[in-house]
């Protein structure tokens, strides 16, 4: 039985019934940028970096089912400009100082900014006041870099069975909260080998004392760009 296909930037991509555009593209070795999407979790749709244009409408590729014969625009100047603006928004909303960040080179936000050729932050910085939480013996929380992808929230809840993290606040005052009356990570049941400890795409959740074990220049996105690293390595591998 032949599978249905849609067109991604003019090239045919096969898909299974119910598969989302982003997943189908990925399986076919085609990269659509994403930050809050992760292969182990259902689509979330908050970062909007996976925006694509289908029949004139801008939709999230992670949460839009593929349809036979659809024409999907992704790697176009219009859509990449939109993505660049979204990245600029994420950069000015938090406090991102790449040269001083120990996640530099392993950070998806930074790597995507290089990928999409973002050269300036463009907007005025919000400079929010977000104190760090160094209470936990093994893990540091630096909220300054949070992009609200909720991957740690989801990983802790769904894979670790703990619910260490949740979001509070609203709008631009949204915050990542820790599951303790004190608000301190040390007072939760969080452990350094939790899935939630390893899933942060940016530099919020950091293992202590190994920050520079791999020198800058030899890190993930120093060796290969995000659009290559983010694709599954071989058939069936996510």
């Amino acid at each position, binding site marked *: 039985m032949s599978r249905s296909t849609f067109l991604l930037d003019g090239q045919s991509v096969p898909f299974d019934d119910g598969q989302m555009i982003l997943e189908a593209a990925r399986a076919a070795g085609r990269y659509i940028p994403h930050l809050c999407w992760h292969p182990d979790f259902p689509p979330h749709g908050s970062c*909007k970096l996976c925006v694509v244009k289908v029949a004139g409408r801008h939709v999230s590729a992670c949460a839009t089912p593929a349809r036979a014969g659809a024409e999907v625009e992704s790697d176009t100047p219009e859509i990449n400009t939109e993505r660049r603006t979204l990245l600029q928004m994420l950069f000015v909303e938090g406090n991102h100082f790449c040269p001083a960040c120990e996640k530099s080179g392993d950070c998806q936000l930074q790597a995507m900014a290089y990928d999409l050729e973002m050269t300036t932050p463009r907007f005025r910085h919000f400079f929010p006041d977000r104190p760090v939480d160094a209470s936990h013996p093994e893990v540091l929380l630096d909220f300054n870099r949070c992009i609200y992808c909720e991957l740690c929230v989801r990983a802790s809840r769904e894979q670790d069975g703990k619910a260490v993290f*949740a979001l509070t606040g609203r709008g631009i005052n949204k915050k990542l909260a820790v599951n303790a009356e004190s608000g301190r990570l040390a007072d939760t049941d969080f452990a350094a080998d939790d899935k939630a400890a390893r899933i942060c795409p940016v530099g919020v959740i950091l293992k202590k004392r190994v920050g520079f074990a791999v020198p800058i220049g030899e890190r993930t996105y120093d060796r290969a760009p995000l659009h290559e690293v983010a694709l599954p390595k071989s058939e069936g591998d996510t």
Partner: protein
Amino acid sequence: MALGAWAQRVDETLTRFGRRPEYLLQMLIALQEHENWLPPEALTALAAALDLPRARVEGVVGFYSFLHAEPVGQYRLLFSDNIIDRMCGSEALMARLCHSLWLAPGQVSEDGLASVDVTSCTGLGDQGPAMLVNGRAIAALNEDRIDIICELIRQKLALDAWPVELFQFENTIQQRDALLSCTALPGDALRAAIAMGRDAWLSQMQASRLRGRGGAGFTTAVKWLACRDAPTVEKIVVCNADEGEPGTFKDRVLLDAHADLVFEGMTLAAWAVGARRGFLYLRGEYLNLRPALEATLARRRAEGWLGASIGGVAGFDFDIEIHLGAGAYVCGEETALLESLEGKRGTPRIRPPFPVTHGYLGLPTVVNNVETLAKCCLIALHGGAAFAATGTAQSAGTKLLSVSGDCARPGIYEFPFGVTVRQVLDACGASDTLAVQVGGAAGITLAPYEFGRRVAFEDVPTAGAFMVFNDTRDMFEVAHNFVRFFAHESCGFCTPCRVGTSLLAGTLDKLAEGKGSPADLLEIEDLDRLLKQASHCGLGSAAPNPVIDGLQKFRPAYERHLMHADFSPAFDLDGALRRARQITGRDDAGAHLPQQPEASR
């Protein structure tokens, strides 16, 4: 506060709501009544008792404007901050109250007695300015009323002992048509629909071509059919009374003056889809209405129009409970409303699936607006064809308009769809009109050359707001007010809306300070486009509407705020010294830096 007292309060609240986690928001609202805020130990105790992560409970508290994880004083005074309230002088009244109570806006007085701040439109635009005192609305504010309120606070009088007339407001109905002149008795419409049978009743709904009055205009019968045909047996009916769109208050009047029509409409929906449970999601700002609504529900139960075997039909069992919102405009979006009904943060869901198949707790759910449901009674009483006989080709029936602003007779007007903007302006006694904002902050700004356009889904759609501005008003200020509203109300889920509404508000702030440049106008247009295209829900995509219309139709109002340079920075050299001036108590010339050094040389 004795240790353990919160444990007892939490226990009482849990018992009252049956220990069900989906009642978390309702529990928090009830718990907060004790001390006007929710101390950390209360949240810990509640989370433990419900077996929920504490951070989730904290997250719900943090989402809603009317829930407080920090003390806000014995009296929490919130001025409605819609542009219409401002035009009625709300800012001067707020300054007067702050001065009398010796406090600054946003701060709690040092004795912990009171705090004063602003809130989004409270739905009293026809009799503003308005405020909320510990959640209870007071309309028609003036200097005398402010002084009375101030004195009552100084005496530390409990709210229940305040003069009742303070909390009374008018149902200013200026023009009645089919709905507002309906004289049917409770049960008449239900009796008619029951006599038809479920299927024939749905056919009448189809024939009526009734479309949702909440703004989106989806055909009601299509929703009902999809819900009825959804495989899950248990169905839910929700009445969306989260009337948060600035400038809208028609649902408030319907719930106050015609609650029977609304509840009967919900019961008619239940008859069609086979639902046994119904919810009225009442915005927190309408707390004053709740006792009368509960009394109406109790009477309808006693009369047999709610409860088991309604109208004597075995198996037609349906009841309605009231859930309160807590200050979150986004909960008017139906999937956010469902999240809120489930006791969660009001974040809009990914659609599909749609509520008609996966709604409240995953059950098939119809969510209809207050006015939509009330209109169903007319269809049951007089038939679908009679209903469809008024209005226009794509917009059957009448529409309630909430008229406010610069006109002689603000209030509720019921017109058949197709009425022109000019006809409404004439009816309400507006003159020298510069612009009309139809559909609230998320709606459309109409200039005089468009006053011949018609209120209808196919021309100017609206949830009911109709704000009038005369030629003394600054349309830049109007849009500025609306954009700040959206920035305040953004749920923060998606990047474009969370950051974009704040960036847009910041750019308009810059213009308001007279520091705008042509580059800022380009930036505004760019942000507008992104918000429209990339936002997760209607809040974000509608947020730039007032600015898009403003730049197109009232561009001089924006250009007056430009410095006529290509670019000027937002950074304010003199403003950076503000804190230093505050600390040293200085405000003389020597404590200021010249704004434009070149010019001052």
